[in-house]
C-alpha cells in the first residue's frame, strides 16, 4: 500500500514543484471559455443557453492537454521499468498516477468552472450542479486519459494521437455532464444525469486501469 502512496506523493510533489502544469491548464480553460463570447456575441440569453456545453467541452480539452506528461516523463528518464517491476501492480500504478493527475488538474478545473460560468451568464442555481458534474466527470477524463497516454507512449505526435483516441470515448461524460447542468438550468431535476455520470465513472474506474496497465506492459516489452 505504501508503494501506491509513494507514487502518489511523488507525482503530487512533482506537480507542485513545477506549478506551471496546473496554472497553464487553468489558463487555457479560462481563455478557451472567454473566446466564445467573442465569437458568438455578447447576448446574455444566447451565452446562458450554450454555457453548460461550452464549459464542459473546454474543461474536457483542458484536461486532455495535460495528459501527455502522465507516463512520458517516466518513460524517457527510465523510471517506468523499475516502477513496473516493483511490488506495486501496474493497475495500481495507473490508478495512483491518474489520481495524482486528477488532483493536479481535474479538481482545479472543477473548482474554476463555476467562476468562469459568470463569463457566460450561467444562472447561479446551476453552478452547484456544474461543480458536481465536473467532480464526477473529470476523474473519468483522467482515467481515460491514462489509457490514451499509456497507448501513445513513445509514439510520434503523441498529443494529437491522444486527443483522437480519447475524445470519442469521452462523449458520454460530455453528454451527461452538460446535460445535468442544462436540466438544472431549465429547472428540471439534474439528479438522473448525475447518477448516470456516476455510473459511467464507476465503469471507467473498473476498465481503464486494466487497459492502461496492459498498454504499459507491452510498451516496455
Amino acid at each position, binding site marked *: 500500500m505504501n508503494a501506491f502512496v509513494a507514487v502518489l506523493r511523488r507525482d503530487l510533489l512533482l506537480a507542485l*514543484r513545477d506549478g506551471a502544469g496546473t496554472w497553464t491548464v487553468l489558463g487555457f480553460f479560462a481563455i478557451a471559455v472567454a473566446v466564445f463570447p467573442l465569437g458568438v456575441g455578447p447576448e446574455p440569453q444566447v451565452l446562458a443557453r450554450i454555457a453548460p456545453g461550452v464549459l464542459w467541452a473546454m474543461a474536457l480539452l483542458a484536461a486532455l492537454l495535460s495528459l501527455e506528461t502522465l507516463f512520458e516523463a517516466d518513460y524517457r528518464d527510465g523510471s517506468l521499468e523499475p516502477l513496473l517491476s516493483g511490488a506495486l501492480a501496474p493497475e495500481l500504478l495507473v490508478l495512483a498516477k491518474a489520481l495524482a493527475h486528477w488532483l493536479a488538474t481535474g479538481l482545479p478545473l472543477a473548482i474554476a468552472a463555476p467562476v468562469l460560468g459568470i463569463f457566460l451568464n450561467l444562472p447561479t442555481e446551476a453552478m452547484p450542479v456544474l461543480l458536481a458534474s465536473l467532480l464526477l466527470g473529470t476523474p473519468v477524463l483522467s482515467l481515460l486519459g491514462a489509457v490514451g497516454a499509456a497507448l501513445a507512449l513513445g509514439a510520434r505526435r503523441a498529443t494529437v494521437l491522444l486527443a483522437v483516441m480519447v475524445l470519442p470515448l469521452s462523449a458520454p461524460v460530455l453528454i451527461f455532464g452538460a446535460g445535468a447542468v442544462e436540466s438544472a438550468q431549465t429547472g428540471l431535476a439534474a439528479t438522473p444525469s448525475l447518477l448516470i455520470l456516476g455510473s459511467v465513472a464507476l465503469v471507467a474506474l473498473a476498465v481503464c486501469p486494466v487497459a492502461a496497465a496492459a498498454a504499459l506492459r507491452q510498451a516496455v516489452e
Partner: protein
Amino acid sequence: MPIMSGNPFASPLPPQPFPLMLRDVTAVCGETRVFSGLDMAIDAGGLWLVRGANGAGKTTLLRLLAGLLRPASGASLWGDGRAPRAVPERATLVGHQEALKPALTAAENLAFWARFAGVEENPWPTRSDPFSVWALADVPLRTLSAGQKRRVSLTRLAFARAPLWLLDEPTTALDAAGQRTVWELIAAHRRRGGAVVVTTHAKGTVEGASELHLGDER
C-alpha cells in the same frame, strides 16, 4: 564508510527461491529475433558477466530476467516454478538511465525509491551510503554531473530488497573509486545470498563469476 567486509544493507535477505533457470530461451524485440537457444542458471550467491557487441541483446536479456519481456520460446523459471513476469519484485533492474526526477533533490528521489521498495525506515544516508552522495542530498538533480547522478541512482541498491540484481553496464560514467564501490556492493550482495547479472565491456574477470557471450563475436 568502508564496506570491504561489513554489510552495507539495511535489511537482510529472506531465503530466496533460487536458482532462476533459463532453458533454450529465444528473445524477440519488436520484429527482430535478438538471441535464441540460451541456457542459463542463476544460483544464490552467483554472478554472471554478460558480454557482447552492442545490439547483441545484453539489455534484452536483462529485461527478460526482470520479467518485463516474455521469452518468444523456451522457459525461464524461478526455483519455485514461477515465471519472472509473475513475480517482478524479485529483480531490480538498473538500466542505462538514472530513473531519477531532475526537478526533485537527491534526498527526495531516494526517499521515493525507498518507500516504493517498501522499506519502512529509509537507511540512506544514516546507515548506508556506499557512494557517499550524502553531501549532494539537498541539491536538485538537474545541477549534478552524469557521474554524480549515476552514483545517486546506484545508491538505490542500498535498500533494494530484490534478491536478483540486473545491472546494465553499471560502471559507465563512474570514476575509479565509484567502480570499485560497485564491485564491492556486488560482492556484499552475493555474500548475503543474492545473485547479480552484470552486462559489461570490461575485460577483466571476477573470482567465482560465470561468463556469457551474446551474439557470435567471441
